[in-house]
């Protein structure tokens, strides 16, 4: 890489002092290796709808999911069994439910690292309620409300007190899980009221589990909200440029607050399901899930810088991760090796389009 020659701003003779963004665009995509990604050129003509669909991130993910599905069915004779496929979904639905909500937060240019901490605290409080002899609806209510309250705390820290969300939620992550540890210590809650097991282990119809039904319902709801309502457009606008969004009359803080609250509630839902499925609570429940859930969202094509992403992408990413880990599990591959695969996939799937674009740019330049 050659040293940069800063002659662009001076040759124009204009005083651009203090105008960060203008300067950034000016320095061009190839000249300034700044840490922020370069601006993409706006094409003269957009692709035809079908071409655009085929070139989209979702098409890539669908292809990936299909490939993994096929590979799995060849790799194990048990894979295509309908009950087996139903079992496979338990692998990712809880995480995917949180990912749906977190997608909105990331789309709005923020992040929430505390989701797994919320799951732990919510599960612990549910266990404590159950241990106090409360009936099933109260236990579930406590779980959901805990999630909502934790999400509201995050929302207040980020919007009311104006903390950067990554640091605020790293703090609340320790706080929430820490409270779970403080309450439970090295103990465990294992007694839950009758009927509670349904949420994580029940089936709505034949092989269609309750978890998957809820996930599909929430995915439809999230997709509708993001792609068909003004709220969805507002979230994207905020992620693209919060200042412009605020000046165009969007209630940036209020929307962001509710996005965090909704993510907390989604973590509460996931906590009810996970606790019900495991039938026990330890403070270490759902450890490391925050990273898996963020991976799911990012793999789904949601830009970590905000503004770009779709719900079908997130759902497909959940499917890809779920199928991959389950298929590898059938092949007796241990969980930690699966995590390598997921890590490689995360980087590769994001790096490949960038590298392809760089390569095609270079080829275009050498052959005029």
């Amino acid at each position, binding site marked *: *890489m050659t*040293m*940069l020659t*800063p002659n662009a701003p001076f040759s124009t003779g204009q005083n651009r002092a*203090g105008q*960060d963004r203008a*300067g*950034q665009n000016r*320095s061009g995509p190839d000249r*300034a*290796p*700044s*840490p922020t*990604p370069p601006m993409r050129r706006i094409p003269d003509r957009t692709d035809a709808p079908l071409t655009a669909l085929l070139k989209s991130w979702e098409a890539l993910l669908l292809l990936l999911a299909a490939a993994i599905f096929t590979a799995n069915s060849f790799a194990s004779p048990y894979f295509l069994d309908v009950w087996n496929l139903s079992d496979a979904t338990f692998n990712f639905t809880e995480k995917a439910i949180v990912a749906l909500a977190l997608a909105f937060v990331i789309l709005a*240019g923020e*992040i929430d690292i505390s989701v797994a901490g919320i799951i732990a605290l919510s599960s612990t409080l549910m266990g404590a309620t159950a241990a106090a002899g409360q009936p099933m609806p109260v236990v579930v209510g406590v779980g959901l409300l805990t999630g909502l309250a934790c999400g509201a705390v995050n929302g207040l820290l980020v919007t009311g*007190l*104006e*903390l*950067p969300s*990554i640091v*605020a939620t*790293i*703090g*609340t*992550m*320790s*706080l*929430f*899980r*820490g409270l779970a*540890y*403080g309450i*439970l*210590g090295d103990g465990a809650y294992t007694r839950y009221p009758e009927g509670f097991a349904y949420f994580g282990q029940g089936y709505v119809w034949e092989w269609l589990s309750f978890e998957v039904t809820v996930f599909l319902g929430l995915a439809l709801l999230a997709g509708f909200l993001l792609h068909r309502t003004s709220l969805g457009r507002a979230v994207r606008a905020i992620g693209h440029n*919060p*200042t412009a969004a*605020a*000046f165009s009359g969007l*209630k*940036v*803080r209020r929307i962001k607050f509710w996005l965090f609250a909704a993510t907390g509630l989604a973590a509460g839902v996931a906590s009810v399901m996970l606790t019900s499925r495991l039938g026990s609570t330890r*403070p270490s429940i759902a450890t*490391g899930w925050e*990273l898996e859930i*963020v991976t799911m969202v*990012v793999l789904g094509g949601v830009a*970590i810088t905000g503004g770009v992403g779709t719900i079908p992408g997130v759902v497909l990413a959940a499917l890809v991760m779920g199928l991959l880990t389950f298929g590898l599990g059938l092949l007796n591959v*241990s969980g*930690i*090796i699966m*995590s*390598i695969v*997921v*890590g*490689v996939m*995360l*980087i590769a799937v994001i790096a490949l389009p*960038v*590298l392809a674009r760089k390569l095609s740019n270079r080829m275009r330049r050498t052959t005029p």
Partner: protein
Amino acid sequence: MTLLNRLLKSREALLSVAGTALLGLIALRAPGFVAPGNLASVFTDTAILIILAIGQTAVILTRSIDLSVAANLALTGMAGAMLNAAHPEIPVPLLVLASAAMGMALGAVNGLLVWKVGLPSIVVTLGTLTIFRGSAFVLSGGEWVNTFQMSPAYLALPRETLLGLPMLAWLAVAVIGLAALGFARSPVGRALYAVGGNPVAAVYAGIDAGRTVFRAFCVSGLLAGLCGYLWVSRFAVAYVDIAAGFELDVIAACVIGGVSISGGVGSVAGAVLGALFLGVIKNALPVVGVSPFWQMSISGAIIIAAVLLNTRAERRKGRIILRHRATTGQEAGA
């Protein structure tokens, strides 16, 4: 500005005061805690966190983040321990250097992906976090390297005392000194601040922003590699899950120390004080009779409080020209 004024406004001074007050409070309950000997052992216990926090500071200064440090530590620690177990004849200093070099290579992978491919650092290091830790599993096959498998010299180095302090503490002191000098006085160190403060201005000033970010990741990786050796030899065991989740403690130390997550603001002294603050709390809780299970939530609350104070202090400087209720505070992330 008078010296007193400047002192009052300096984050490091405030943090020192808060730390001293904390020590005073602990001393009320447990006078033995503030005995010099005990304080020295608290420092030694925190040494690894201090070293990692300094590496992380370099990265955060450039508006990036390195979530992979703890996984890097686990992988290099495991590799070093296995090499020592298989070939005890290799001199220990060489192994330490190899660990540091390996850590730096892993850091360089992060740096290259951020620099050359232009991926967001949080995504890259989230990916390499799982890859590095997974590789530690692949490398070891899930086996532990136990105390008796490592050579006595390998385990003894951090414990050898010099002037009353173990080598581990001296190493931390050396890293602090070098980093303080390097960050504040070397062109590479100043570039970290320049790139984080305003990348565009830095580029116009002739600084290669991408290369600077790359260097920051190399420093973070190098120190993580060094800590890989230190961790394994200090606890005399290597397994896949060592230091799991420690990356968040490291970031917390930086944040408490006033290193701004939006880049360009922070100092080595701050990071060290932030790490010490966490170290004192961790060591003091059992002494004052608080169940260690509460430690996590207490450090969480402290992180939030520290960020709150720091963002307030930062905002007063006012980079925003046109102030609007809804937009304040988002400028930094934009």
